Protein backbone atom coordinates (compact mmCIF):
# COMPACT_ATOMS: atom_id res chain seq x y z
CA UNK A 1 0.00 0.00 0.00
CA UNK A 2 1.27 3.47 -0.83
CA UNK A 3 1.78 6.35 1.62
CA UNK A 4 -1.52 7.94 2.67
CA UNK A 5 -2.43 11.05 0.65
CA UNK A 6 -4.75 12.43 3.28
CA UNK A 7 -4.41 11.65 6.94
CA UNK A 8 -6.49 12.84 9.89
CA UNK A 9 -5.13 12.44 13.40
CA UNK A 10 -7.31 12.61 16.49
CA UNK A 11 -9.70 15.00 14.77
CA UNK A 12 -12.42 16.51 16.97
CA UNK A 13 -15.13 19.03 16.44
CA UNK A 14 -17.43 20.38 19.12
CA UNK A 15 -20.62 22.37 18.65
CA UNK A 16 -21.17 23.83 22.11
CA UNK A 17 -21.67 20.85 24.36
CA UNK A 18 -22.05 18.37 21.52
CA UNK A 19 -18.96 16.52 20.32
CA UNK A 20 -19.94 15.83 16.71
CA UNK A 21 -16.60 14.28 15.81
CA UNK A 22 -14.58 12.79 18.64
CA UNK A 23 -10.87 12.00 18.15
CA UNK A 24 -11.27 10.40 14.75
CA UNK A 25 -8.17 9.20 12.91
CA UNK A 26 -8.27 7.89 9.39
CA UNK A 27 -6.19 7.89 6.24
CA UNK A 28 -6.88 7.78 2.53
CA UNK A 29 -4.44 6.33 0.03
CA UNK A 30 -4.31 6.38 -3.72
CA UNK A 31 -5.80 3.26 -5.25
CA UNK A 32 -8.03 2.65 -2.27
CA UNK A 33 -11.69 3.27 -1.54
CA UNK A 34 -12.17 3.94 2.13
CA UNK A 35 -15.85 3.63 3.02
CA UNK A 36 -17.29 5.44 6.01
CA UNK A 37 -20.55 4.11 7.39
CA UNK A 38 -22.62 4.75 10.46
CA UNK A 39 -26.15 5.71 11.46
CA UNK A 40 -27.54 9.19 10.79
CA UNK A 41 -26.00 11.70 13.16
CA UNK A 42 -22.85 9.64 13.62
CA UNK A 43 -20.73 12.60 12.45
CA UNK A 44 -19.88 11.40 8.94
CA UNK A 45 -20.80 14.59 7.13
CA UNK A 46 -19.15 16.70 9.82
CA UNK A 47 -15.99 14.68 9.27
CA UNK A 48 -16.24 15.33 5.53
CA UNK A 49 -16.66 19.05 6.28
CA UNK A 50 -13.54 18.96 8.47
CA UNK A 51 -11.47 17.17 5.84
CA UNK A 52 -12.59 19.57 3.09
CA UNK A 53 -11.92 22.63 5.25
CA UNK A 54 -15.50 23.85 5.43
CA UNK A 55 -15.32 23.43 9.19
CA UNK A 56 -12.27 24.00 11.34
CA UNK A 57 -11.43 21.20 13.76
CA UNK A 58 -11.55 21.97 17.48
CA UNK A 59 -8.47 19.80 17.88
CA UNK A 60 -6.43 17.30 15.92
CA UNK A 61 -4.58 17.66 12.65
CA UNK A 62 -5.00 16.97 8.94
CA UNK A 63 -2.09 16.25 6.63
CA UNK A 64 -2.35 16.33 2.88
CA UNK A 65 0.69 14.76 1.24
CA UNK A 66 3.65 16.59 2.78
CA UNK A 67 1.71 19.59 4.08
CA UNK A 68 -0.12 20.18 7.32
CA UNK A 69 -3.43 21.60 6.11
CA UNK A 70 -5.10 21.89 9.52
CA UNK A 71 -7.12 25.10 9.59
CA UNK A 72 -6.73 25.82 5.88
CA UNK A 73 -9.72 27.38 4.13
CA UNK A 74 -11.97 25.19 1.99
CA UNK A 75 -10.87 26.80 -1.27
CA UNK A 76 -7.18 26.39 -0.47
CA UNK A 77 -7.63 22.71 0.37
CA UNK A 78 -9.64 22.28 -2.84
CA UNK A 79 -6.82 23.85 -4.86
CA UNK A 80 -4.44 21.33 -3.27
CA UNK A 81 -6.40 18.56 -4.96
CA UNK A 82 -9.23 17.63 -2.60
CA UNK A 83 -12.65 17.54 -4.29
CA UNK A 84 -15.92 16.76 -2.61
CA UNK A 85 -19.52 16.07 -3.45
CA UNK A 86 -22.37 17.04 -1.20
CA UNK A 87 -25.00 14.89 0.45
CA UNK A 88 -27.64 17.37 -0.65
CA UNK A 89 -27.16 18.08 -4.33
CA UNK A 90 -25.23 21.29 -4.59
CA UNK A 91 -24.92 22.37 -8.21
CA UNK A 92 -25.58 25.65 -10.03
CA UNK A 93 -29.21 25.09 -11.13
CA UNK A 94 -29.42 28.06 -13.51
CA UNK A 95 -26.25 27.05 -15.40
CA UNK A 96 -26.05 24.30 -18.01
CA UNK A 97 -24.54 20.96 -17.02
CA UNK A 98 -21.56 21.91 -19.16
CA UNK A 99 -21.08 25.30 -17.51
CA UNK A 100 -21.20 23.61 -14.09
CA UNK A 101 -18.25 21.44 -15.10
CA UNK A 102 -16.47 24.17 -17.06
CA UNK A 103 -16.53 26.37 -13.96
CA UNK A 104 -15.14 23.46 -11.95
CA UNK A 105 -12.31 22.98 -14.45
CA UNK A 106 -11.58 26.71 -14.44
CA UNK A 107 -11.12 26.56 -10.66
CA UNK A 108 -7.77 24.82 -11.23
CA UNK A 109 -6.36 27.66 -13.31
CA UNK A 110 -3.42 29.37 -11.67
CA UNK A 111 -2.55 33.04 -11.91
CA UNK A 112 -4.94 35.86 -12.60
CA UNK A 113 -8.25 34.93 -14.20
CA UNK A 114 -8.79 36.30 -17.70
CA UNK A 115 -10.86 39.44 -17.69
CA UNK A 116 -11.77 39.96 -21.33
CA UNK A 117 -11.35 36.71 -23.27
CA UNK A 118 -14.51 34.61 -23.58
CA UNK A 119 -14.36 31.78 -21.03
CA UNK A 120 -15.81 29.35 -23.60
CA UNK A 121 -12.72 29.81 -25.78
CA UNK A 122 -10.42 28.21 -23.21
CA UNK A 123 -10.18 24.81 -24.86
CA UNK A 124 -8.27 23.14 -22.05
CA UNK A 125 -11.17 23.70 -19.63
CA UNK A 126 -13.72 22.73 -22.25
CA UNK A 127 -12.07 19.39 -22.87
CA UNK A 128 -11.78 18.66 -19.13
CA UNK A 129 -15.47 19.47 -18.72
CA UNK A 130 -16.48 17.32 -21.70
CA UNK A 131 -14.43 14.42 -20.34
CA UNK A 132 -15.95 14.70 -16.85
CA UNK A 133 -19.47 14.73 -18.27
CA UNK A 134 -18.70 11.79 -20.53
CA UNK A 135 -17.29 9.81 -17.59
CA UNK A 136 -20.54 10.25 -15.67
CA UNK A 137 -22.75 9.43 -18.64
CA UNK A 138 -23.98 12.99 -19.10
CA UNK A 139 -22.40 13.69 -22.49
CA UNK A 140 -25.80 14.02 -24.16
CA UNK A 141 -27.11 16.35 -21.44
CA UNK A 142 -24.46 19.07 -21.61
CA UNK A 143 -26.72 21.90 -22.71
CA UNK A 144 -29.50 21.14 -20.21
CA UNK A 145 -29.81 23.45 -17.21
CA UNK A 146 -28.64 21.63 -14.10
CA UNK A 147 -31.87 22.51 -12.29
CA UNK A 148 -33.87 20.66 -14.92
CA UNK A 149 -31.85 17.43 -14.86
CA UNK A 150 -33.40 14.32 -13.31
CA UNK A 151 -32.36 13.63 -9.73
CA UNK A 152 -29.99 10.81 -10.66
CA UNK A 153 -28.39 12.94 -13.35
CA UNK A 154 -27.85 15.77 -10.90
CA UNK A 155 -26.13 13.36 -8.51
CA UNK A 156 -23.95 12.35 -11.44
CA UNK A 157 -23.25 16.01 -12.19
CA UNK A 158 -22.00 16.44 -8.61
CA UNK A 159 -19.40 13.76 -9.29
CA UNK A 160 -18.58 15.20 -12.72
CA UNK A 161 -17.90 18.62 -11.17
CA UNK A 162 -15.59 17.03 -8.61
CA UNK A 163 -13.74 15.19 -11.39
CA UNK A 164 -13.43 18.34 -13.48
CA UNK A 165 -11.26 19.88 -10.77
CA UNK A 166 -8.70 17.11 -11.46
CA UNK A 167 -8.44 16.04 -7.81
CA UNK A 168 -6.15 13.49 -6.20
CA UNK A 169 -8.51 13.02 -3.23
CA UNK A 170 -12.27 12.53 -3.60
CA UNK A 171 -14.63 12.96 -0.66
CA UNK A 172 -17.99 11.54 -1.72
CA UNK A 173 -20.85 12.23 0.68
CA UNK A 174 -23.62 9.75 -0.10
CA UNK A 175 -23.26 9.86 -3.87
CA UNK A 176 -25.95 7.20 -4.30
CA UNK A 177 -28.62 8.89 -2.18
CA UNK A 178 -32.00 8.71 -3.87
CA UNK A 179 -30.69 7.03 -7.02
CA UNK A 180 -32.53 4.31 -8.91
CA UNK A 181 -30.91 0.83 -9.26
CA UNK A 182 -29.65 1.44 -12.81
CA UNK A 183 -27.98 4.71 -11.86
CA UNK A 184 -26.46 3.02 -8.82
CA UNK A 185 -24.85 0.34 -10.97
CA UNK A 186 -23.43 3.04 -13.23
CA UNK A 187 -21.92 5.01 -10.34
CA UNK A 188 -20.41 1.86 -8.80
CA UNK A 189 -18.71 1.08 -12.09
CA UNK A 190 -17.52 4.69 -12.35
CA UNK A 191 -16.04 4.72 -8.84
CA UNK A 192 -14.31 1.41 -9.47
CA UNK A 193 -12.68 2.97 -12.51
CA UNK A 194 -11.58 6.01 -10.51
CA UNK A 195 -10.03 3.97 -7.71
CA UNK A 196 -6.67 3.49 -9.33
CA UNK A 197 -5.80 7.16 -9.67
CA UNK A 198 -7.54 8.64 -6.64
CA UNK A 199 -7.70 8.37 -2.90
CA UNK A 200 -11.36 8.10 -2.06
CA UNK A 201 -13.57 8.52 0.98
CA UNK A 202 -17.02 7.07 0.34
CA UNK A 203 -19.74 7.95 2.82
CA UNK A 204 -22.70 5.75 1.95
CA UNK A 205 -25.76 4.05 3.39
CA UNK A 206 -26.19 1.56 0.55
CA UNK A 207 -24.46 -1.49 2.09
CA UNK A 208 -24.42 -3.47 -1.14
CA UNK A 209 -22.51 -0.67 -2.80
CA UNK A 210 -20.21 -0.25 0.20
CA UNK A 211 -19.25 -3.92 0.30
CA UNK A 212 -18.92 -4.01 -3.48
CA UNK A 213 -16.45 -1.10 -3.50
CA UNK A 214 -14.69 -0.67 -0.18
CA UNK A 215 -11.08 -1.70 0.35
CA UNK A 216 -11.28 -0.44 3.87
CA UNK A 217 -14.20 0.34 6.12
CA UNK A 218 -14.57 2.67 9.05
CA UNK A 219 -17.71 2.60 11.17
CA UNK A 220 -18.70 5.68 13.12
CA UNK A 221 -21.30 6.08 15.84
CA UNK A 222 -21.87 9.08 18.13
CA UNK A 223 -18.89 10.90 16.67
CA UNK A 224 -16.42 8.10 17.40
CA UNK A 225 -14.78 5.42 15.34
CA UNK A 226 -16.38 2.17 16.36
CA UNK A 227 -14.28 -0.06 14.16
CA UNK A 228 -11.96 0.21 11.21
CA UNK A 229 -10.47 -2.45 8.99
CA UNK A 230 -11.03 -4.75 6.05
CA UNK A 231 -14.68 -5.18 4.99
CA UNK A 232 -14.78 -8.89 5.92
CA UNK A 233 -13.46 -8.14 9.40
CA UNK A 234 -16.06 -5.41 9.90
CA UNK A 235 -18.84 -7.67 8.71
CA UNK A 236 -17.80 -10.23 11.33
CA UNK A 237 -17.38 -7.66 14.12
CA UNK A 238 -20.03 -8.35 16.74
CA UNK A 239 -20.02 -4.85 18.14
CA UNK A 240 -20.68 -3.34 14.74
CA UNK A 241 -23.34 -5.93 14.07
CA UNK A 242 -25.06 -4.85 17.20
CA UNK A 243 -24.64 -1.09 16.89
CA UNK A 244 -25.29 -0.62 13.26
CA UNK A 245 -25.58 -3.39 10.75
CA UNK A 246 -27.90 -5.40 12.97
CA UNK A 247 -30.35 -2.60 13.43
CA UNK A 248 -30.35 -1.90 9.72
CA UNK A 249 -31.08 -5.54 8.98
CA UNK A 250 -33.95 -5.33 11.41
CA UNK A 251 -35.38 -2.32 9.67
CA UNK A 252 -34.75 -3.25 6.08
CA UNK A 253 -36.44 -6.26 4.47
Amino acid at each position, binding site marked *: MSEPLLRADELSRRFGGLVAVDRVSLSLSRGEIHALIGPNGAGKSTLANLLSG*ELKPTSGSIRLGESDVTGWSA*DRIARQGVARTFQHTNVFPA*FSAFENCRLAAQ*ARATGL*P*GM*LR*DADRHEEWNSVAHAALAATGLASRETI*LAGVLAHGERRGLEIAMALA*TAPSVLLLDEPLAGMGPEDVAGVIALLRGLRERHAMLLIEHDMDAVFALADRLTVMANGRVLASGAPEAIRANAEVQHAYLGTLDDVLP
Partner: protein
Amino acid sequence: MRARVVFVLIAVVLLAAFPMVAEKFYLQLVTKIMILSIFALSLDVLVGYTGLVSLGHAAYFGVAAYSLALLAPSDNAANVWVTLPLALAASAAAALVIGALVVRTAGVYFIMVTLAFAQMVYYFFHDTRVAGGSDGIYVNERPQTFIPGLDLANDAHFYYAVLMLLVLVFALLAAMLRSPFGRALQGIKANERRMRALGYATLRYKLAAFVIAGTLAGLAGYLTAAKEGYVNPEMLAWHQSGTVLMMLILGGMGTLIGAVLGTFTYVLVQEWFSGITRHWQLLMGAFIIAVVLVLPQGLAGLARARARRSPAPRPPGDANE
Protein backbone atom coordinates in the same frame (compact mmCIF):
# COMPACT_ATOMS: atom_id res chain seq x y z
CA MET B 1 -28.63 37.03 -28.43
CA ARG B 2 -28.69 38.43 -31.95
CA ALA B 3 -31.80 40.50 -31.13
CA ARG B 4 -29.95 42.01 -28.21
CA VAL B 5 -26.99 43.07 -30.37
CA VAL B 6 -29.35 44.66 -32.91
CA PHE B 7 -31.19 46.47 -30.11
CA VAL B 8 -27.95 47.88 -28.71
CA LEU B 9 -26.71 48.96 -32.14
CA ILE B 10 -29.98 50.77 -32.92
CA ALA B 11 -29.86 52.49 -29.52
CA VAL B 12 -26.28 53.68 -30.17
CA VAL B 13 -27.18 55.00 -33.63
CA LEU B 14 -30.20 56.88 -32.23
CA LEU B 15 -28.10 58.35 -29.41
CA ALA B 16 -25.42 59.37 -31.91
CA ALA B 17 -27.99 61.12 -34.10
CA PHE B 18 -29.77 62.81 -31.20
CA PRO B 19 -27.64 66.01 -30.96
CA MET B 20 -28.54 66.88 -34.57
CA VAL B 21 -32.18 67.38 -33.62
CA ALA B 22 -32.13 68.07 -29.89
CA GLU B 23 -32.50 71.36 -28.09
CA LYS B 24 -29.86 72.26 -25.54
CA PHE B 25 -32.03 71.23 -22.57
CA TYR B 26 -32.60 67.74 -23.91
CA LEU B 27 -28.98 67.38 -24.99
CA GLN B 28 -27.90 68.05 -21.40
CA LEU B 29 -30.61 65.79 -20.03
CA VAL B 30 -29.52 62.82 -22.15
CA THR B 31 -25.87 63.54 -21.27
CA LYS B 32 -26.85 63.28 -17.61
CA ILE B 33 -28.77 60.06 -18.24
CA MET B 34 -25.81 58.48 -20.07
CA ILE B 35 -23.49 59.38 -17.18
CA LEU B 36 -25.93 57.89 -14.69
CA SER B 37 -26.14 54.81 -16.93
CA ILE B 38 -22.42 54.25 -16.39
CA PHE B 39 -23.12 54.57 -12.66
CA ALA B 40 -25.96 52.02 -12.84
CA LEU B 41 -23.83 49.64 -14.94
CA SER B 42 -21.10 49.78 -12.33
CA LEU B 43 -23.55 48.89 -9.57
CA ASP B 44 -24.95 46.05 -11.69
CA VAL B 45 -21.55 44.34 -11.56
CA LEU B 46 -22.03 44.06 -7.80
CA VAL B 47 -25.77 43.64 -7.38
CA GLY B 48 -26.77 41.89 -10.57
CA TYR B 49 -23.75 39.71 -11.27
CA THR B 50 -21.99 39.07 -7.97
CA GLY B 51 -25.04 39.17 -5.71
CA LEU B 52 -23.65 41.91 -3.46
CA VAL B 53 -26.35 44.50 -2.73
CA SER B 54 -24.48 47.70 -1.95
CA LEU B 55 -26.35 50.64 -0.46
CA GLY B 56 -23.26 52.81 -0.40
CA HIS B 57 -22.23 52.94 -4.03
CA ALA B 58 -22.50 56.75 -4.19
CA ALA B 59 -19.36 57.00 -2.05
CA TYR B 60 -17.11 56.00 -4.98
CA PHE B 61 -19.12 58.21 -7.34
CA GLY B 62 -18.61 61.15 -4.98
CA VAL B 63 -14.94 60.52 -4.22
CA ALA B 64 -14.01 60.88 -7.90
CA ALA B 65 -16.23 63.95 -8.26
CA TYR B 66 -14.52 65.61 -5.29
CA SER B 67 -11.14 64.57 -6.65
CA LEU B 68 -11.77 66.55 -9.81
CA ALA B 69 -13.08 69.53 -7.84
CA LEU B 70 -10.00 69.55 -5.59
CA LEU B 71 -7.52 68.98 -8.42
CA ALA B 72 -8.97 71.49 -10.88
CA PRO B 73 -7.21 74.86 -11.02
CA SER B 74 -9.57 77.73 -10.26
CA ASP B 75 -8.72 79.90 -13.24
CA ASN B 76 -8.41 77.46 -16.15
CA ALA B 77 -9.41 74.00 -17.34
CA ALA B 78 -8.04 70.85 -15.70
CA ASN B 79 -6.23 68.31 -17.85
CA VAL B 80 -8.36 65.18 -18.33
CA TRP B 81 -5.28 62.99 -18.74
CA VAL B 82 -4.03 63.96 -15.31
CA THR B 83 -7.21 64.43 -13.31
CA LEU B 84 -9.23 61.47 -14.63
CA PRO B 85 -6.64 58.80 -13.72
CA LEU B 86 -6.13 60.39 -10.31
CA ALA B 87 -9.88 60.60 -9.66
CA LEU B 88 -10.37 56.96 -10.73
CA ALA B 89 -7.44 55.92 -8.54
CA ALA B 90 -9.02 57.71 -5.57
CA SER B 91 -12.30 55.86 -6.10
CA ALA B 92 -10.49 52.56 -6.60
CA ALA B 93 -8.46 53.10 -3.43
CA ALA B 94 -11.60 53.91 -1.42
CA ALA B 95 -13.29 50.79 -2.83
CA LEU B 96 -10.23 48.68 -2.06
CA VAL B 97 -10.03 49.78 1.58
CA ILE B 98 -13.77 49.63 2.26
CA GLY B 99 -14.21 46.52 0.11
CA ALA B 100 -11.52 44.60 1.99
CA LEU B 101 -13.68 44.95 5.08
CA VAL B 102 -17.19 44.62 3.67
CA VAL B 103 -16.76 41.57 1.39
CA ARG B 104 -16.37 39.47 4.53
CA THR B 105 -19.99 40.13 5.36
CA ALA B 106 -23.03 38.84 3.51
CA GLY B 107 -26.70 39.54 3.00
CA VAL B 108 -28.31 42.26 5.07
CA TYR B 109 -25.03 42.90 6.93
CA PHE B 110 -23.36 43.71 3.65
CA ILE B 111 -26.11 46.24 2.90
CA MET B 112 -25.73 47.86 6.31
CA VAL B 113 -21.93 47.98 6.30
CA THR B 114 -21.68 49.47 2.80
CA LEU B 115 -24.23 52.08 3.89
CA ALA B 116 -22.29 52.83 7.07
CA PHE B 117 -19.00 53.37 5.24
CA ALA B 118 -20.67 55.57 2.63
CA GLN B 119 -22.18 57.70 5.39
CA MET B 120 -18.73 58.08 6.91
CA VAL B 121 -17.43 59.41 3.59
CA TYR B 122 -20.49 61.65 3.33
CA TYR B 123 -19.95 63.18 6.77
CA PHE B 124 -16.26 63.60 6.07
CA PHE B 125 -17.07 65.96 3.18
CA HIS B 126 -20.15 67.43 4.85
CA ASP B 127 -18.62 68.31 8.22
CA THR B 128 -15.05 69.29 7.36
CA ARG B 129 -13.76 72.31 5.47
CA VAL B 130 -11.66 70.15 3.16
CA ALA B 131 -13.92 70.81 0.19
CA GLY B 132 -16.43 73.46 1.08
CA GLY B 133 -18.35 71.48 3.67
CA SER B 134 -22.10 71.31 3.12
CA ASP B 135 -21.93 74.15 0.56
CA GLY B 136 -19.91 72.05 -1.86
CA ILE B 137 -17.27 73.26 -4.25
CA TYR B 138 -17.16 74.56 -7.82
CA VAL B 139 -15.35 73.19 -10.84
CA ASN B 140 -14.99 76.49 -12.68
CA GLU B 141 -14.13 75.11 -16.07
CA ARG B 142 -14.82 71.80 -17.70
CA PRO B 143 -11.65 69.67 -17.96
CA GLN B 144 -10.05 69.47 -21.39
CA THR B 145 -8.29 66.71 -23.29
CA PHE B 146 -6.21 69.13 -25.39
CA ILE B 147 -7.04 67.05 -28.45
CA PRO B 148 -7.34 69.52 -31.36
CA GLY B 149 -10.93 69.94 -32.45
CA LEU B 150 -12.41 68.48 -29.26
CA ASP B 151 -13.79 71.10 -26.88
CA LEU B 152 -15.47 69.47 -23.89
CA ALA B 153 -16.89 72.84 -22.84
CA ASN B 154 -19.07 72.51 -25.93
CA ASP B 155 -22.18 70.55 -24.87
CA ALA B 156 -22.37 68.54 -28.09
CA HIS B 157 -18.70 67.55 -27.88
CA PHE B 158 -19.15 66.60 -24.25
CA TYR B 159 -22.24 64.58 -25.20
CA TYR B 160 -20.26 62.54 -27.73
CA ALA B 161 -17.41 61.98 -25.28
CA VAL B 162 -19.88 60.66 -22.71
CA LEU B 163 -21.62 58.48 -25.33
CA MET B 164 -18.27 57.03 -26.34
CA LEU B 165 -17.42 56.25 -22.71
CA LEU B 166 -20.81 54.65 -22.13
CA VAL B 167 -20.33 52.40 -25.17
CA LEU B 168 -16.81 51.58 -24.00
CA VAL B 169 -17.92 50.69 -20.45
CA PHE B 170 -20.81 48.62 -21.80
CA ALA B 171 -18.53 46.71 -24.17
CA LEU B 172 -15.87 46.14 -21.51
CA LEU B 173 -18.40 44.83 -19.02
CA ALA B 174 -20.05 42.62 -21.64
CA ALA B 175 -16.65 41.06 -22.37
CA MET B 176 -15.73 40.83 -18.69
CA LEU B 177 -18.94 39.01 -17.82
CA ARG B 178 -18.27 36.34 -20.44
CA SER B 179 -14.65 35.97 -19.30
CA PRO B 180 -13.45 33.43 -16.72
CA PHE B 181 -13.51 36.19 -14.12
CA GLY B 182 -17.10 37.15 -14.92
CA ARG B 183 -18.25 33.53 -14.93
CA ALA B 184 -16.73 33.09 -11.49
CA LEU B 185 -18.64 36.15 -10.23
CA GLN B 186 -21.89 34.68 -11.49
CA GLY B 187 -21.04 31.38 -9.82
CA ILE B 188 -20.45 33.23 -6.55
CA LYS B 189 -23.83 34.90 -6.87
CA ALA B 190 -25.52 31.55 -7.50
CA ASN B 191 -23.76 29.53 -4.78
CA GLU B 192 -20.72 30.91 -3.02
CA ARG B 193 -20.22 27.84 -0.82
CA ARG B 194 -20.02 25.58 -3.87
CA MET B 195 -17.50 27.92 -5.50
CA ARG B 196 -15.25 27.69 -2.46
CA ALA B 197 -15.55 23.90 -2.48
CA LEU B 198 -14.42 23.97 -6.11
CA GLY B 199 -11.35 25.95 -5.10
CA TYR B 200 -12.28 29.57 -5.79
CA ALA B 201 -10.92 32.13 -3.33
CA THR B 202 -14.28 33.88 -3.41
CA LEU B 203 -13.30 36.82 -1.17
CA ARG B 204 -10.66 37.90 -3.67
CA TYR B 205 -13.14 37.72 -6.54
CA LYS B 206 -15.69 39.74 -4.60
CA LEU B 207 -13.08 42.33 -3.68
CA ALA B 208 -11.99 42.62 -7.33
CA ALA B 209 -15.62 43.10 -8.36
CA PHE B 210 -16.04 45.73 -5.64
CA VAL B 211 -12.99 47.69 -6.84
CA ILE B 212 -14.01 47.48 -10.51
CA ALA B 213 -17.53 48.66 -9.64
CA GLY B 214 -16.18 51.47 -7.46
CA THR B 215 -13.77 52.64 -10.18
CA LEU B 216 -16.50 52.77 -12.83
CA ALA B 217 -18.78 54.60 -10.38
CA GLY B 218 -15.88 57.03 -10.07
CA LEU B 219 -15.90 57.56 -13.84
CA ALA B 220 -19.58 58.53 -13.62
CA GLY B 221 -18.84 60.83 -10.66
CA TYR B 222 -15.99 62.52 -12.50
CA LEU B 223 -18.19 63.13 -15.55
CA THR B 224 -20.98 64.49 -13.35
CA ALA B 225 -18.63 66.94 -11.67
CA ALA B 226 -17.30 67.98 -15.10
CA LYS B 227 -20.80 68.41 -16.51
CA GLU B 228 -22.39 70.27 -13.58
CA GLY B 229 -19.30 72.30 -12.65
CA TYR B 230 -20.28 71.79 -9.05
CA VAL B 231 -19.87 69.10 -6.40
CA ASN B 232 -21.65 68.83 -3.07
CA PRO B 233 -21.99 66.17 -0.36
CA GLU B 234 -25.42 65.10 -1.63
CA MET B 235 -23.59 63.36 -4.49
CA LEU B 236 -22.38 60.73 -2.05
CA ALA B 237 -25.37 60.62 0.25
CA TRP B 238 -27.41 57.45 0.70
CA HIS B 239 -30.19 59.03 -1.42
CA GLN B 240 -27.91 58.81 -4.39
CA SER B 241 -27.03 55.19 -3.59
CA GLY B 242 -30.71 54.37 -3.25
CA THR B 243 -31.63 56.12 -6.50
CA VAL B 244 -29.11 54.19 -8.59
CA LEU B 245 -30.29 50.95 -6.95
CA MET B 246 -33.86 51.81 -7.94
CA MET B 247 -32.78 52.49 -11.52
CA LEU B 248 -31.26 49.03 -11.56
CA ILE B 249 -34.33 47.34 -10.06
CA LEU B 250 -36.52 49.19 -12.55
CA GLY B 251 -34.44 48.10 -15.52
CA GLY B 252 -33.66 44.59 -14.35
CA MET B 253 -30.64 43.49 -12.35
CA GLY B 254 -28.14 41.18 -13.91
CA THR B 255 -28.52 42.51 -17.46
CA LEU B 256 -26.42 45.35 -18.86
CA ILE B 257 -29.24 46.52 -21.10
CA GLY B 258 -31.53 46.63 -18.06
CA ALA B 259 -29.17 48.96 -16.20
CA VAL B 260 -29.20 51.48 -19.07
CA LEU B 261 -32.90 51.05 -19.75
CA GLY B 262 -33.71 51.56 -16.08
CA THR B 263 -31.66 54.75 -15.92
CA PHE B 264 -33.32 56.26 -18.99
CA THR B 265 -36.78 55.33 -17.75
CA TYR B 266 -36.17 56.59 -14.22
CA VAL B 267 -34.83 60.00 -15.22
CA LEU B 268 -37.36 60.59 -18.00
CA VAL B 269 -40.29 59.55 -15.82
CA GLN B 270 -38.90 61.74 -13.05
CA GLU B 271 -38.78 64.71 -15.46
CA TRP B 272 -42.36 64.03 -16.49
CA PHE B 273 -43.72 63.57 -12.95
CA SER B 274 -41.89 66.58 -11.57
CA GLY B 275 -43.56 68.66 -14.28
CA ILE B 276 -46.94 67.49 -12.99
CA THR B 277 -46.46 67.94 -9.26
CA ARG B 278 -43.93 68.96 -6.68
CA HIS B 279 -44.64 65.68 -4.91
CA TRP B 280 -43.28 63.64 -7.80
CA GLN B 281 -41.69 61.12 -5.45
CA LEU B 282 -45.16 59.80 -4.62
CA LEU B 283 -45.85 59.11 -8.28
CA MET B 284 -42.37 57.66 -8.74
CA GLY B 285 -42.89 55.29 -5.84
CA ALA B 286 -46.18 54.07 -7.28
CA PHE B 287 -44.60 53.70 -10.72
CA ILE B 288 -41.72 51.57 -9.43
CA ILE B 289 -44.04 49.38 -7.38
CA ALA B 290 -46.24 48.88 -10.45
CA VAL B 291 -43.28 47.92 -12.65
CA VAL B 292 -41.87 45.52 -10.06
CA LEU B 293 -45.27 43.86 -9.63
CA VAL B 294 -45.90 43.45 -13.36
CA LEU B 295 -42.28 42.80 -14.37
CA PRO B 296 -40.41 41.14 -11.52
CA GLN B 297 -37.31 41.15 -13.71
CA GLY B 298 -37.60 44.81 -14.57
CA LEU B 299 -37.96 46.35 -18.00
CA ALA B 300 -35.31 44.05 -19.46
CA GLY B 301 -37.67 41.21 -18.56
CA LEU B 302 -40.20 42.58 -21.08
CA ALA B 303 -38.53 40.82 -24.00
CA ARG B 304 -38.43 37.57 -22.04
CA ALA B 305 -42.05 37.92 -20.91
CA ARG B 306 -43.06 38.25 -24.57
CA ALA B 307 -40.98 35.25 -25.53
CA ARG B 308 -42.81 33.24 -22.88
CA ARG B 309 -46.16 33.98 -24.43
CA SER B 310 -44.98 32.60 -27.76
CA PRO B 311 -45.63 28.88 -28.30
CA ALA B 312 -41.95 27.92 -28.35
CA PRO B 313 -41.38 25.10 -25.85
CA ARG B 314 -39.42 25.98 -22.75
CA PRO B 315 -37.82 23.62 -20.27
CA PRO B 316 -39.85 23.37 -17.06
CA GLY B 317 -38.41 24.95 -13.96
CA ASP B 318 -36.17 27.32 -15.88
CA ALA B 319 -34.37 29.14 -13.12
CA ASN B 320 -34.42 32.33 -15.17
CA GLU B 321 -38.16 32.56 -15.00
